[in-house]
């Protein structure tokens, strides 16, 4: 499987990954996910709308450094184990923890059970939000391409 590896020492806290994530999942959903497509989608983002959500977070450590928090698509995913609707499942072929929002009952057991605090809830409280590895993009996770410091990269594990 593939995983987004993180080198926190390289992170400058620019949050480009955050905006790329928002753009990738916006109404202007890019298909390929080229930086050009993402830029166009970034222009259109409503950054004052709480419904514009990112699946990743960059947290300042208060000492000048940053800690990127990205879904690990864990080998043993607690979120999926906690899911009582079958909406979250580990895909054994891709290794990804996939989310089927149609199945989701918004019980938020996943939120409680991810020890890394990755899953978020939607403002309308009807869905959860987590990394989907940008499977809808031909070029893979938007965040990775958006990082100017190459602090995140996709690697095979």
């Amino acid at each position: 499987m593939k995983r987004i590896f993180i080198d926190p020492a390289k992170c400058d806290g620019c949050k480009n990954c955050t905006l790329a994530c928002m753009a990738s999942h916006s109404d202007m959903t890019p298909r390929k996910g080229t930086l050009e497509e993402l830029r166009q989608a970034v222009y259109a983002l409503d950054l004052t709308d709480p419904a514009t959500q990112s699946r990743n977070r960059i947290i300042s450590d208060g000492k000048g450094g940053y800690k990127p928090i990205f879904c690990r698509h864990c080998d043993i995913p607690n979120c999926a184990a906690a899911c009582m609707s079958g909406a979250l499942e580990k895909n054994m072929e891709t290794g990804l923890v996939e989310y089927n929002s149609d199945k989701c009952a918004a019980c938020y057991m996943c939120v409680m059970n991810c020890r890394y605090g990755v899953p978020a809830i939607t403002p309308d409280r009807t869905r959860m939000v987590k990394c989907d590895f940008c499977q809808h993009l031909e070029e893979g996770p938007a965040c990775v391409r958006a990082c100017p410091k190459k602090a995140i990269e996709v690697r095979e594990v």
Partner: protein
Amino acid sequence: MNSCTDCLSRNTCPSADKPMENYIRSLPLETAHHRVAAQETKCGFGLQGVCCRLCANGPCRITPDAPRGICGASADTIVARNFLRAVAAGSGCYIHIVENTARQLKNTGLHKDKIRSEKALNHLAELFGVTGTDKYDLCVKVADAVLSDLYRPEYEPMELVEKLAYAPRVKKWKELGIMPGGAKGEVFNNIVKTSTNLSSDPVEMLVSCLRLGISTGLYGLQLTNLLNDVVLGDPEIRPAPVGMNVIDPDYINILITGHQHSLFTYIQDRLLDADVVEKAKAAGAKGFKLVGCTCVGQDLQLRGAHYTEIFDGHAGNNYISEAVLSCGAIDAVLSEFNCTLPGIEAICDELKIKQICLDVVAKKANAEYIPFHYETRQADGDRIIDEIIAAYKERRGNVPMNLFTDHGNKNTLTGVSEGSLKAFLGGSWKPLIDLIVAGKIKGLAGVVGCSSVAYGHDTLTAELTKELIAKDILVLTAGCSSGGLENIGLMTPEAAELAGPNLKAVCKELGIPPVLNFGPCLAIGRLEIVATEIAEELGVDLPQLPLVLSAAQWLEEQALADGAFALALGLPLHLGVPPFITGSKLVTKVLTEDMVGLTGGRVIVDGDGKSAANTLEAIIEEKRKALNI
């Protein structure tokens, strides 16, 4: 040392000018075209204009979790403030140019120096309503009229506005309360407004942009041209060579960059003096040549009829300057304003090219600063010439030559201005109006402003222009867009083949290209004079004309100030990328929608040439319909 061994394997950005793209890719030196790839990732907050670093609490960025900055500023405030700052800075640039130009005219009068166009002088005197004892005194009076307006406080209206601007527009501006005060004061006042915890009213700030637009357009653009015409000569239509083929390595070549042609007046004449030519010959060259680059090169090209001996031709726009320097045959760079890219510094070092800066506002780190003073121009000029000769001697034979002799073309139509075009048409706009009314020319599009590289060098400008002419829309250009379009041959008579059937027939009959080159960005002011005169003849206001503007590849803050003028004039303005405003719904709506109700203008953002051309065509057709033509 910036030459890079892996340049060949690295991406350079695409260019509308394919031979140039290949040339740049093969260069052993790094240019802006090479740096695009490493800067491909753009800061999203920056793109949206919602990053604020006006105070030490910042930078604050707007996100759904943080909809306000620490001070409480909303996205609307931050975007409007950033935008107004940019427009004010851009206005400052053009006002600086017109100020120096007016001072130059005044000094010319005071020192009874050479005047190349009394016609232009009399035209201004008539416009301003000033008289003088002789032509020199008239120069002083005309210049003083401009300078005194520029130096007025911002609460005092400038006097020439009503004399320069079209009456129906003045009426509109008065209604909107956007008649500008002293141009420098406007810049000052608006910079203050956008400082920390001052204005947070996005609408007021956008209205201020329009005021700045008017002072920028009428003074920075229109007047700079007209004042320069007096000292530098009226544009005359003529074919000229363009592109890197203009560079003759047998001469000592000086690349000029900037916007203030009048600062070169002295030196460009001096370079032809016999004693100076002798010096060049003694050094092993045939003499001196100026090679045009950026807008000042365009201005020289525009007036090229007066400078056939000293001026080789225009090599290219701002983003070609690094390539031009890389050819090895340029011995010095004389710069006085933007767009003098910092990127030339490393190339000049590498190729031992002497850099001299005449105006501190454009000081390059490794340039020698020899400020232009009218009083000491002779001694300074000789010093400059000697230093350039020294550089020539030191570098020639010691640096590699990488000429690009087949680049560009030899028959670009140049010298188009409001005056020369009207003269070409027989002294009246009627023939052009008739062609428009008859539908032979569907409308006019000003494809103006800069050249940029981040999303392709001149690619959008070229694509849009080709689309427009194919739709029988006559394109008029001014700014670095001209430089890009002329190098790819769109301003040669042969380009008529690319035009739609009606426009093609017109071009063939008149022997003109479908894209008319007005020269530097300053000449956007000339386009607007053309538009005004046509409107006057038709008895309509500017927004009614089948005329659109596009700053497809706008680059700088200056372009935004120009754009504000276009909006104040009530014209539709297309931009290829948004001016960092989309983070504010309010600002975006005002500029792209509500402006129609205020001035008649509006901003259209579209990064695609085809669809942008369709939109602009639709606007032109709409306006034709409203005029019943």
